[in-house]
């Protein structure tokens, strides 16, 4: 038989534990408040289309494969556990290369190559339409998906103007040779897409380093250095300089989504 005193002590301790634990963890989890982050950082990517085209042309000439995956795409697939399936129809792809050509080839037959990825929009349509707020935008501008919340309705795929999202028709593990344990594994039945390598960004910020996504790293190591990633809110960052000094094109800017992947040197200026 428990004494009244013991009972009160125990319930009191349990209540305090239930009340205090989230308070303590909430304090320890966030180093900066969302407002501070929003004021300080906004991630974006700049693409030098000229360099990208050069790299792709060389690669295609060397391999003879018009659908060759350049270092950036290979690195992305490997880093983020993006599976590889035979059937293009259902193969998820976070980053892909597209061939670009003026609609009037008689006037300018030149072909360009550009990478396509999630644009991490300022006003993301996917976040707007998501039923469960599984798709959300972080204060630093990265659009992410909470895989535990996603119900797989695919409304976001319909709403995304950039085809950035893939649905897992199959379990991604079936299409992976090796798994990167640093990146969350997805299951069948949810939607996935590029995260700007959010795990790398968070790690770098915690260490006080400059973050670099896998594709950008590979592009500089093995490619032509066409991709530049950085904080557009920092006027001294490399990306800010590039955006200031070039004619910058955003995809489907007319929709007002304000995408944060910027294409430069489209006309070869």
């Amino acid at each position, binding site marked *: 038989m428990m004494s009244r005193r013991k009972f009160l002590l125990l319930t009191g301790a349990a209540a305090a534990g239930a009340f205090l634990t989230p308070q303590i963890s909430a304090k320890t989890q966030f180093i900066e408040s969302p407002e501070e982050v929003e004021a300080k950082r906004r991630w974006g990517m700049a693409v030098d289309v000229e360099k990208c085209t050069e790299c792709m042309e060389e690669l295609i000439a060397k391999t003879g494969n*018009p*659908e*060759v995956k350049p270092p950036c*795409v290979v690195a992305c697939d490997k880093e983020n556990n993006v599976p590889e399936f035979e*059937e*293009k*129809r*259902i*193969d*998820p*792809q976070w980053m*892909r*290369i*597209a*061939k*670009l*050509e*003026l*609609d009037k080839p008689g006037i300018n037959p030149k072909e360009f190559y*550009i990478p*396509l990825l999630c644009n991490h929009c300022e006003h993301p*349509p996917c*976040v*707007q*339409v*998501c*039923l*469960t*707020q*599984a798709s959300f935008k972080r204060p630093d501008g990265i659009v992410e998906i909470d895989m*535990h*919340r*996603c*119900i*797989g*309705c*695919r*409304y976001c*795929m*319909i*709403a*995304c*103007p*950039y*085809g950035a*999202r*893939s*649905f897992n*028709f*199959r379990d991604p593990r079936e299409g992976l040779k090796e798994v990167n344990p640093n990146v969350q594994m997805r*299951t*069948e*039945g*949810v*939607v996935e897409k590029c995260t700007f390598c959010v795990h790398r960004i968070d790690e770098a910020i915690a260490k006080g380093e400059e973050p670099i996504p896998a594709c950008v790293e590979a592009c500089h190591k093995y490619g032509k250095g066409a991709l530049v990633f950085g904080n557009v809110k920092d006027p001294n960052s490399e990306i800010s300089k590039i955006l200031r000094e070039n004619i910058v*094109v955003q*995809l*489907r800017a*007319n*929709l007002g989504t304000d995408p944060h992947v910027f294409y430069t040197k489209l006309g070869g200026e």
Partner: protein
Amino acid sequence: MAVEFKKIEGDSIQYFALVIVLAAVTASGFYAYVLDHEIAGLNGLSNRVPWGIVNAGIPYFIGLSAGSLIVSALAGVFNIKKYKVFSRIAAYMAAAWIIAAILSIALDIGKLYHFMNAVRYFNPTSIFSWNAFLYSSYFVICSVYLLVQFEEMERATRFMAGLAVFWAVLVHSGTGAIYSFVYSKELYHSALTPPMFIVCAITSGLGLLLANLYFTFRFTKRELDPKLIRGLALIFAGLMMILGYFLAVEGFEKGYIPALHEAVQFVFLTPTSGVFWSFWLLVIFGIAIPVIIVLNPKTGYDLRWISFAGILHAALVFAERFYLIVPGQVFPEEYLPGYKIESLHTLEGYIVTYTPTIIEWLQIIGLIAMVYLIFVVGVKVFALIPERAVEEVVEE
């Protein structure tokens, strides 16, 4: 009492055979779902066409529900006594169709065990999120409306009828907005879709109700006055013509925009694609022929012909849903206006195909069978059908 509602006996061999057949088809639909999710590649969906016919089932079933309910409530709201004979059957069907619609969502989503997240987490900017609330509340309203009818509560019935019509319009406009407010696809975006959805809902709901009434009264050997059906059939034909008008306006508007010429050419004039057929089959067999059947004096008074027109139209409204959902997905978006973009690693930039597989069709057919199973069991359990539906009796 002017109208006497009565349960059916439901002890004939034919009745039980019908129940067994419907139950078997329903079960096969759910089995198709299980197969679809256990074995990859059984459906025709892709990363370019993530919404197929199981998704099209959502607006289709909601349309049938809303249409059925609006017809039912005609009697209550406007106090048209002669249509009161149908009010219970229509309200009951409305509740059954909304169950099919909600199940269609459940079958369509990728993570069924995350389904409750749609109710737990609300996103105020998501139209689908609003609809999750609207659909469930709509089902409750349908049920209460039916209940007050069973209890013969006159005033409550009139109030609930008004509320139900309002809610049906809200629910179905919301469903239309899920698709038509998508601005990323030029072929989706149209302010005409929600009103078109309402018209389409009433026509398809009415068409199916006409056939339903005819077969129910015939099967139960009760009296049905052709004059009553004729009145409904004329409303049916008139609204079908309005639907045709909406489709024409929308098509011509899109065709007027030079940027959309290629897309419009693909949708309306390319017979090699399923999209072309979904549109023209709808126009010819879903609108033109049913309208002719109803308006032609030789066939327009015959209950069998009217039922046929009703079924034909209701079935082809499914093509309308296909025409709404699929073209915007199979036709590529222009990422950089003025430039042609072809992806090396995905199918972006190409016209893709979507052919629904038997596994997908079975899920839709299974849900339809389930609704009729609910109906067939319902007429035995509840007093849904009037003993006789004759104009004079009702207007006494």
